[in-house]
């Protein structure tokens, strides 16, 4: 059974600081997605990481994927209040341990980020 674990689950940080959210998963997969959810809103796609070593950046957020370590990170640089939200990683379930896709995602429990002035 594929398990996806995020940590921390809650993160309170000050504006201007840097921090990293970690996403570990338990079986081979080379597709990982990051989503953002604002309170009472839907999920918004942030990053799609499709191969080992993939790195993507958008503004103050940078995501990376290490499929060998089964780890993805979401790094926040110089946080601002507008980044306050819950961040989810989601892993694509492979057909086998060697790749392919079943086409659905297993989501982590989310990291609730609060950026304070």
């Amino acid at each position, binding site marked *: 059974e594929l398990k996806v674990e995020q940590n921390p689950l809650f993160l309170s940080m000050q504006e201007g600081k840097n921090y990293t959210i970690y996403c570990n998963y338990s079986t081979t997969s080379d597709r990982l997605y990051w989503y953002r959810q604002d309170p009472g809103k839907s999920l918004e*796609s942030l990053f799609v990481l499709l191969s080992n070593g993939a790195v993507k950046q958008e503004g103050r957020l940078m995501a990376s994927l290490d499929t060998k370590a089964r780890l993805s990170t979401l790094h926040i640089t110089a946080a601002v209040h507008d980044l306050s939200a819950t961040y989810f990683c989601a892993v694509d379930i492979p057909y086998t341990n060697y790749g392919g896709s079943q086409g659905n*995602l297993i989501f982590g429990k989310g990291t609730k980020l609060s950026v304070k002035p």
Partner: protein
Amino acid sequence: DARVTQTPRDKVTEMGQEVTMRCQPILGHNTVFWYRQTMMQGLELLAYFRNRAPLDDSGMPKDRFSAEMPDATLATLKIQPSEPRDSAVYFCASARGITYEQYFGPGTRLTVT
């Protein structure tokens, strides 16, 4: 600006009543997903379709939930009879294919009293 749409946005109903939620995927997307989100369980996949055919509905309580795609522009999720434990936000998402990123609709907030 293509978006997934869902109706209704909010639904309050009494236990035992039938609830139908509707989703219009983004035009051209051939894969549709239904999720349920609660504080306790987080985000759970209920069912998904590709080219209107159900691929997996193992996440759904079979005795009371049913999901269909009558045509390429409409997906439905039905609960009959509804129970208080079904109270949650139900999201629909669509994707261009199985390996593509999923775009989520605004959700239907269901409250069963």
